[in-house]
């Protein structure tokens, strides 16, 4: 414990900020464990790493070590954000930097370990980059790029995710060694007003999507009268296409806990819940362990840090209802009931869980708190755009080369996100069509927004929302009508059914959109969609319904032609709507390579060497396998 200060300071070196002139970005390195000579190995074992096959790697590493008579400490780490490079394995030997290897598989694992652990060099071919800790004397490897200088990371500023993928998620010591709980230790010496004032200065706004100023929420809860108060974390990250919170829950659970404890201290809460969706079993496991550790170390439970302040947290597992991300529904769900939203007021701040004053913030919001307390509100406000301070994490997915989890200062443009960080579009010849922000409640922004700096206000004015930060990049193979239909289908499935606009409005919109994608649309459908959208937006009970029409509205706003095309020409330019497709091979583009033939499940694709392919419409089931297979976009 005494050493925890040593290696733990944030190293401020690289210039990265977007504005405000504060060109510092915290980076976290796990200090070399004192007195330990064994090599250290970290495996990316978050849900995504595991999905990519990381759990098998652990066994293989163990087997390799055993075979070679070597010993090493193996640590699981969470998600560093590079989904495109999973599975990731980091290896470090004493006195040298930690090297991160990408796309590790049983094929290259032995080679990596051999080169790194036996040959004393690092495997240049597999290495992604090296993390050189300036606090320790480390001899860098030649020919291996600096981890933080890689394009994927260069433009990122990591506050929330600074430890994700870096520290062992089982280890509170790693957390402490990297400055963990410094925020809490400082906070307990401050008054409630002082803490809230720092949060106010930081400009932090709710990262759950609505962007309500966090300090104000805390103040309401603090000022509410009640014999008991609750500080609740909304970890019901339900937006499909968003997984920022999962990364924090799995990769750096204590940063969430620390934020919650500081919040509880500030508002005077004694009890807490983390409402986590059940689809995140690993996160729940890790969180539970973290809670035990925090209690053991006196950061949680009775008489925290000897201050007399007591606060404890219980994890509530969701049971599969997206609407429980809405705070009133979440409260009902915590209380064991149907997750139905309720009319506000009373707001949770005055009447929340079990009728007591309750403050609810999302994971990412809490994960910012400790850093703000340590470094001050002004420091945090040094990043970001005029209206939205700090950083925001985004789950960048879809048709980009480097999908993953990124954290950037607000105000970063869509182009920077998609091209600089995401590496551009997956398929060279298939262009960018839209970026979908904010999940099912968001909207699709077309190319003209490429230079727009992302913050709450800019997205809102474009018809999208920040939401929890999902960004799905769509290319020309994605049909906008179908995308709108997809989201509406999701909303219809997840609408709780309480209020008429959301329940019936979305269901009817879905029916209309389905009609259009089936080629049975009518021109007046557009007007109807607009009518219902407007009604649903203005009259729905909770946020779910109020934003549900966004995908439809943005589609009608930016891609009206495409909708009209579906209705009038019975044509889907993205070749996505099954009923509207008749695939043909474009003779001028076909290079007669034949790559399109093998994937065809019905042998409808006829091809002979050096001949243009031909599609038999009798047997074609429009599965699109050939379209996906053709590298030259010769099949339409």
């Amino acid at each position, binding site marked *: 414990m005494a050493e925890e200060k040593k290696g733990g300071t944030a190293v401020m070196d690289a210039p990265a900020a977007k504005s405000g002139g504060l060109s510092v970005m915290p980076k976290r390195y796990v200090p070399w464990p004192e007195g330990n000579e064994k090599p250290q190995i970290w495996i990316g074992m978050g849900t995504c790493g595991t999905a990519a096959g990381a759990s098998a790697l652990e066994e293989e590493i163990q087997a390799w070590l055993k075979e070679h008579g070597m010993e090493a400490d193996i640590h699981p780490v969470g998600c560093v954000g590079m989904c495109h490079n999973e599975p990731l394995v980091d290896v470090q030997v004493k006195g040298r930097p930690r090297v991160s290897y990408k796309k590790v598989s049983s094929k290259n694992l032995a080679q990596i370990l051999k080169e790194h652990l036996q040959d004393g060099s690092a495997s240049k071919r597999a290495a992604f980059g090296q993390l050189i800790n300036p606090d320790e004397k480390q001899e860098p490897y030649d020919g291996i790029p600096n981890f933080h200088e890689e394009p994927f990371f260069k433009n990122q500023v990591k506050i929330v995710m600074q430890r994700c993928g870096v520290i062992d998620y089982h280890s509170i010591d790693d957390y402490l060694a990297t400055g963990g709980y410094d925020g809490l230790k400082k906070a307990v010496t401050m008054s409630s007003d002082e803490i809230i004032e720092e949060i106010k200065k930081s400009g932090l706004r709710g990262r759950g999507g609505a962007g309500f100023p966090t300090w*104000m929420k805390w103040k*309401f809860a603090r000022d509410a009268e009640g014999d008991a108060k609750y500080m609740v974390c909304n970890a019901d990250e339900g937006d499909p296409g968003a997984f920022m919170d999962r990364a924090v829950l799995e990769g750096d659970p204590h940063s969430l806990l620390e934020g919650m404890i500081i919040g509880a201290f500030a508002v005077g809460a004694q009890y807490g819940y983390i409402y986590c969706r059940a689809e995140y079993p690993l996160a729940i496991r890790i969180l539970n362990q973290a809670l035990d550790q925090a209690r053991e170390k006196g950061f949680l439970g009775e008489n925290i840090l000897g201050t007399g302040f007591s606060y404890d947290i219980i994890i509530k597992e969701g049971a599969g*209802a997206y609407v429980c991300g809405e705070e009133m529904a979440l409260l009902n769900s915590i209380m064991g009931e*149907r997750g*139905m939203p309720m*009319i506000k*007021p009373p707001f949770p701040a005055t009447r929340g869980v079990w*009728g007591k004053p309750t403050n609810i913030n999302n994971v990412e919001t809490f994960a910012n708190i400790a850093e703000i307390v340590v470094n001050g509100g002004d420091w945090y406000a040094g990043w970001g755009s005029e209206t939205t301070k700090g950083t925001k994490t985004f789950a960048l997915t879809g048709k980009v080369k480097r999908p993953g989890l990124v954290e950037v200062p607000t105000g970063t443009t869509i182009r920077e996100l998609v091209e600089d960080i995401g590496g551009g579009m997956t398929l060279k010849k298939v262009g960018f069509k839209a970026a979908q922000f904010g999940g099912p409640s968001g909207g699709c922004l077309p190319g003209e927004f490429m230079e727009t700096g992302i913050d709450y206000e800019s997205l809102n004015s474009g018809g999208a929302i920040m939401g929890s930060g999902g960004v799905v990049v769509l290319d020309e193979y994605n049909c906008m009508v179908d995308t709108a239909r997809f989201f509406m289908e999701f909303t*219809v*499935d*997840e*609408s*709780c*059914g*309480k*209020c*008429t*606009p959301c*329940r*019936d*409005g*979305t*269901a*009817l919109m879905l*029916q209309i959109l389905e009609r259009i994608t089936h080629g049975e649309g009518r021109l007046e459908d557009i007007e*109807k969609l607009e*009518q*219902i959208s407007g*009604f649903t937006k*203005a*009259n*729905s*009970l909770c946020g779910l319904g109020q934003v549900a029409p966004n995908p439809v509205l943005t589609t009608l706003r930016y891609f009206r032609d495409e909708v009209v095309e579906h209705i009038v020409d019975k044509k889907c330019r993205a070749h996505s709507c099954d009923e509207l497709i008749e695939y043909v091979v474009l003779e001028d583009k076909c290079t007669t390579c034949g790559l399109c033939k093998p994937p065809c499940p019905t042998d409808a694709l006829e091809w002979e060497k050096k001949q243009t392919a031909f599609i038999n419409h009798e047997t074609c089931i429009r599965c699109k396998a050939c379209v996906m297979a053709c590298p030259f976009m010769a099949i339409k």
Partner: protein
Amino acid sequence: MSTATTKVDTITVTINGQTIQVPKGTRIIQAAEMLGIEIPTFCYQPRMRPNAACRICTVEVTKPMNKMFMACATEMMDGMEVLTDSERTLKDRQTNLDLLLTQHPLDCPVCDKGGECKLQDYSVKYGSFENPFETKRKDFPEDIRSVALDFNSNRCILCGGCIQVCGDIQQVDAIGFSKRGFITVVGAPMGEALDCEFCGQCMDVCPVGAITSRFAKYKFRPWQEEKTQTTCTYCGCGCQYDLRTVDGEASRVTPIEGVGPGQGSLCVRGHFGYHFMEDDRRITRPLVRRGDKLVETTWEEAVSEAARGLAGAKAAGAGRVAGIAGGRLTNEEQYLFGRLVRDVLGSSNLDSSLRYGAINGVTVTREALGVTGMMNSFDEVRAADAVLLIGCDITQEAPILGLAVKEAIHKGEKPVLVADSMKTEIMKRGAGRLVYTPGTEIAVIKGLVKAVVDEGLIDEQVAKKYPKAVQALRSELSGTYKEIETPTGLKKDDIVALAKRFAAASKGIILAGPRVTGGLKGKSAMTMLVDLAFLTGGLTTPGAGVNAITMENNELGLALNGMAPELVPGGGSWDDAEARGKVATAWNCSLPNHQGDTMMEMFDAMREGRISAAIVAGTDPVGRLPQDAGAAEALGALDCLVVSDLFLSETAKRAHVVFPARSYAEKDGTVTNMEGRVQTITSCMKAPGKAASDWKIVSDIAREMGHPLEYANPGEIRAEAAALVPQFADTDVTNAARGGVSTEALEAWLAGGFGTGMGERYDLPAKLNEASGHEMRLYVGELLFHSGSMSTYNWGLMKINDAASLQLNSREARKLKIKEGDRVRLTGDRGSCVVTAKPDPNIMPGTLFFPRHSVLDDVRNLVQVVEGSEEEGSVPQFRFTRVTMEKVSGVAEAEASA
């Protein structure tokens, strides 16, 4: 949110250009109502917190921001400006209706709601008259499996009002949403048929025809109906409702929002018990006895025969005639009946169903507090900090008062404390519970008083102001808890905990049920409760108090009219010469100079030939009391028995003359509810045959006897009665509103030795829970679906519940391998019988429950009657007995014994 709050209590708001000052916290819809502006609503119920689900009440707020708000839920801010008819509002409202109508089946011609359907009305008013969206309509089969309510989910607009009323007001949660989103359905859980209390409130709040009454289905169209506001006569609550009739036939009952004790709530009896008036079994013509038969006769002959019989007995000697009346009679009828017996027949042998009702409760509160009936109103119960229910299964015995208790739970999340011999529904909702051995109420109450004394829970001001009374109690309760723990089966700590919770409340209300007032040493038990209230400050704090519930409709009228030998009209004591003199003066007669017999004494006198004639109106002692009471033999021994009733009751079967009486729907008058509220009943149906009001019957007999009591209408009787019973002069006023406890009476009571016989009061009877050869304790009690026998003449209520099943503990049943529907034999000291068993988790092990209304006299007749002493109000106790239970194996044996 950070509004510049002005400290004023009123704010100025503008709706559609009209400016109005409203109290802070007023919602848009309320302000609009004040201005006479209509805002459509589906899910909004003034009684409940806004659900804000249907969104039809959307209005455009233009200041301080421009946004659509729900009028039902939005509290207005100072300076707020609202448009309820702007283009945007109308458009959104129309879209809302369009969305609903795209799915709602257009089956209005066959929908019972047609004509009073909000969706229909709003569509005409705000709809688009075209159906712009087409979609697949829902296609649920109509659920007609429940006995009373049909569910048509296709018509349902999912406003949730039914679920809210079931959960928040009725607190039964019999229905709920299942699934979610577009496919959400309302109904009973598990997809099963609804089986609930059938209060019907879900139907009342349904804005469309999704929930309809099976009993009224296709029987009316709203515009054909005539509406008559009247008082429900099934229990002591006295709810107000509209009895609707089509061509003089009852079509249905509908509640009246915000009116009367129930404030718009009804229970199953009130809602669906309107069929008995039209039952074929009604007596329609006078009957006279010819040998062992009752035969129809003319009115004149029946009157003359009755008069002759009564006059003969009167002539044979003073006190040879008796009169027994019941709570079915109106205040006016009771008054006149009493005058007939005491004045015309010159007998002091006048008693009533009050004797086997709550006379002990009524007497104790009258003597100690000067209040006849409840000292608290239902509204005070609603606002109570704590409600202590003892021996009172309120949801069964006084369902609407039960709702007031539930509202206290719901509103303030405040504790309801229940002591009972089974797990009652209200107990499960409450915060404190004591489940004791049946029949040991008096010991439980003693324990509670002792806990208050021992644990220093006595109200400071009371202790200061009445040190002597407190000291008297303290010394009386110096014994150990042993004598309480042993018979009741309770632990001292549990008793103390409950007492502490009750004492901690500032507005604590005690409600005593029939098992206290009609239990062993009922008068003492009730007095102890007064002690409990006294010690905890309940008699001196507004909103707190102690009350006995009455279960019969006009039971309190019986007390006010002095329908018991120890009472005189006005509710005073027979002992009180001044009160007696007042009556004599009013009637211009001399009253008999001795106090008459109570009912059980009358029975003895009848058997012994000291009483030879009697008139019984509106009650059925033979049917009501167990065989052991000897009512059948006693009444059967009379030379002349005159009975008036709606049906040929067990008593009427033994009569010499039977008059067909009118039901509450066929006569006018007033009845008094348990709060002391005098409310009117209004004739709206045609009486069958020759049926007449009881005041007419009495008047005719009196005339025939040469002692005319002539009135043109009940109003004239009431005017006369009001001279003796001031309560009759002001209708719809509760005792609480009249001032509650009379300080004078309380001081006098305390000064007069704090009730008499303190030592005897706190002596526990030796018989309490003593061992016997029979190990099960059988308790005969009330069921929500039925009260007395009237309800059993309702085919509707009988359809809902005709189960005369013996309830036993489900675990015990599992052990004994007894399943629902199995036949079991009960054997007691008075014989044995076979009944159908129904396991129930709420019954305690070792205990059995059987509904009192049951036509199966066999079980009732197992009960031995314990005659209460005069000090204990001469109340016969017939609720408990001990039996042995065994499963009857084989159908043959079961049938043989049946």
